């Protein structure tokens, strides 16, 4: 060793990094290990490795008892629906608000983006939903999720629109392109990275959200996965192997999306925080 001080410093750094990473990993390991154990072995909820043979039937049991197929489809519908609506509305609004910065449009942008900080008044919202006959409906939840995500997603895409040169718009207009075609055929394709980021974030957020269904969905057949896993936990709290299997299946989509789309998630979450 040429430089012993450097070496110990390096070692220390690596040790500290591991020390912080491990606690973040433990809960995930808990879920994975215990979902692969029998009821007796999982009762302790510890980090011992699952014994062979692995009881794979945990998953089939939980899919059947927890009615996971139904809630998976619900979650998928809510997430996909709000991703589509939110990305569509947010990009269209962000585009016009960024390109045509009149006084009123700047005010409307501020008004919309203020929603990032505002709390939702769920109690009064119930009144609005009942009036609109959206209470306890799947469409209502999708629209509600859209409304919740719109402020941040508009903010995210707005910053990106400014980077797309306006010369393109001018050229397209001179060639006789109308506003609708200009947006869909010229600008939207160039917004692809921002649109994907917004879509991924909306999907993650809506998949994990459970407050709105907790308030407004009375029938269990309409519950998304997060809420039904909580309900399942209430009924089978002694069967940690099943609860963990349920949690694992519920988290799998977000973990997959996280692994595949980490780049987009990080870039989306850092928007506005770092000068681009």
């Amino acid at each position: 060793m040429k430089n012993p001080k450097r070496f110990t410093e390096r070692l220390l750094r690596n040790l500290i990094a591991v020390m912080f990473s491990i606690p973040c990993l433990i809960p995930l390991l808990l879920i994975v290990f215990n979902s692969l154990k029998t009821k007796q072995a999982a009762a302790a909820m510890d980090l011992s490795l699952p014994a062979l043979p692995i009881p794979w039937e945990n998953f089939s049991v939980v899919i059947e008892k927890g009615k996971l197929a139904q809630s998976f489809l619900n979650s998928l519908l809510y997430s996909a629906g709000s991703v589509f609506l939110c990305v569509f509305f947010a990009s269209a609004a962000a585009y016009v608000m960024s390109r045509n910065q009149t006084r009123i449009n700047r005010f409307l942008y501020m008004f919309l983006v203020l929603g990032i900080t505002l709390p939702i008044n769920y109690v009064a919202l119930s009144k609005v939903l009942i009036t609109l006959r959206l209470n306890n409906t799947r469409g209502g939840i999708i629209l509600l999720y859209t409304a919740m995500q719109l402020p941040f997603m508009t903010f995210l895409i707005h910053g990106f629109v400014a980077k797309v040169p306006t010369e393109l718009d001018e050229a397209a207009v001179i060639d006789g392109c109308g506003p609708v075609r200009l947006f869909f055929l010229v600008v939207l394709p160039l917004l692809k990275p921002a649109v994907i980021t917004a879509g991924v974030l909306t999907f993650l957020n809506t998949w994990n959200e459970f407050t709105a269904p907790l308030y407004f969905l009375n029938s269990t057949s309409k519950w998304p996965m997060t809420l039904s896993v909580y309900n399942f936990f209430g009924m089978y709290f002694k069967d940690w192997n099943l609860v963990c299997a349920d949690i694992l299946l519920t988290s799998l989509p977000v973990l997959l999306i996280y692994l595949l789309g980490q780049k987009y998630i990080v870039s989306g979450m850092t928007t506005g925080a770092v000068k681009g």
Partner: protein
Amino acid sequence: MNKNKIYPWYFMAGALLVYFILFFLPGLLGVGYSFTDWSAYSTELNFVGLDNFRTIFSANENYTKIISNTLVFTLVTTVIKNVLGLALAVLLTKSVRFLNLHRSIVFMPSVLSTLIIGMLFKSILDAKSGLLNTALRACGLGFLAQKWLVSTEYAFGSVMAVDIWRGTGYIMTILIAGILSISTDYYEAAEIDGAGGIQKFRYITLPLILPTLATTTVLNIIYGLKVFDMVYALTNGGPGKATTEVLYTAVFKRFGTGQYAVGTALSSVMFVIMIFVGYFMIRLMTRNEVIE
């Protein structure tokens, strides 16, 4: 070229309509309803003036405790997440083995559902057979084992700790992006001048990352004041009288018991405060944007 023609107003209509009706309007209506005796038990609606607010701010109710809990939660989690997040961000922008793996792992809790994290930590923090106490006992540190979630002494601290565990990775990720955007020239120049690691942090990293820290602070405050999931899943406000109760778990309970007017008044206090505070926060967040 006529900008209003090329960029027509109706492009904004969808977003504004959905946002206004399902987000902003309930906030406004809620303020109105907080001056009434709206409840699930009567179809009549009477004007009661400031009665609901008197209930909220009167000393013999738990509401002052709930409000102070929310503020303490926000303050403590914001400070600790920022400090820990900054320390981790500095560490994980240096040469560490498996750098990206570490970053991914620390960030991972942020993508999991809070409800699921709550359930897991209920098991981990269980007094008798939880992983934490079992581990402490195994290390001979049994005297440190506590009733983490069910004693009035430790419950609130435990809830905040779990929230810090969940949220630090997110803050770290933003700060890493901030640190990486600092030009390496500064560090090279400082090295030539013989600056050590601590000096480099104090005189280069810290001042240049302040704007990013301001944003993470804003995000943390917004999150903290609105916190619901974490508390609901871990303790649901208990144990005892409002030990860990925060604004939004209290609103949910009033909704459940049909005391709509008090629930909406609690929500409205936040709504009105956030319209004003939020305006400055949003100005701070949008300041980096390019304005034509």
